């Protein structure tokens, strides 16, 4: 895939990662204590699995997000863009077109000459074979 499409894919990946991260964290976050007067919300004994997941989820997700952003930077550095702006590129295209035309004409000339020579050789060869066949007398 070309570099710009890769960059576009990376941007979309970062976007997808970020809204998945925020959505997951919001969905799984424990309730917030509003005031010291209200008692703590009852913690259901769901085991320590959920709490460990809740603790390490932000870490893994944030490291993934940072990794994706770094990959974007790497891709940006890999863009083979030269400083040439539009006019420089168009000028180069005109030059290349002129050179292409010139060498196309040269190629055509060579081709014509070669075809002419081929025809000459073929004609001479047929003459020679005719002479050979005519001079050969069946014994």
């Amino acid at each position, binding site marked *: 895939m070309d570099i710009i499409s890769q960059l*576009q894919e990376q941007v979309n990946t970062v976007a997808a990662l970020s809204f998945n991260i925020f959505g997951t964290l919001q969905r799984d976050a424990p309730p917030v204590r509003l005031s010291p007067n209200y008692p703590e919300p009852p913690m259901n004994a769901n085991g320590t699995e959920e709490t460990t997941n809740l603790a390490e989820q932000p870490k893994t997700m944030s490291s993934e997000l940072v990794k994706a*952003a770094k990959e974007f*930077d790497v891709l940006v550095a890999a863009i083979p*863009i030269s400083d040439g702006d539009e006019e420089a590129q*168009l000028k180069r*295209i005109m030059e290349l*077109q002129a050179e292409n035309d010139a060498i196309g004409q040269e190629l055509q000339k060579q081709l014509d000459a070669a075809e002419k020579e081929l025809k000459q*050789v073929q004609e001479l060869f047929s003459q020679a074979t005719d002479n050979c066949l005519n001079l050969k007398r069946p014994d």
Partner: protein
Amino acid sequence: MATATYPPPPPYYKLYKDYLQNPNSAPEPPPPIRGTYVLYGANYTTDDVLPTLEEQGVRQLYPKGPNVDFKKELRSLNRELQLHLLELADVLVERPSQYARRVEDISLIFKNLHHLLNSMRPHQARATLIHILELQIQRRKQAVEDIKRRREEAQKLLQEALGTLDGQ
């Protein structure tokens, strides 16, 4: 159950009855369309140009101008994006009701990123064209060299054959 048959082909083929005898007796193919045209009720334009962000009602974050330094702007937009995501996380912790403004900012940054990437496409197209032209020139030069070489070889062979025949 009666089914409708397909519509008949357009009747223009009758105009080309004598094409083999007289190619000028048949109408020319229609010229390419310029400007806008209507297709299945929708308007299309032949001038494919990327609309600027202002035309889409989106604020442009990177500086306008004839030459945009794509790499620098992409990198700075990426940094802005990360900062805004962190800000969003902060806002959600402390003032959850003010998320809307932050989310809007983040989507603005994404739109700018995509617009910047899209505006690199014409540059890429021209660079591809330059590359193709260079390849073609190289191939043509190679072909010229090949033909020259073969002609010289053929000449040499003919001279040798002439020499052999004369020697006989």
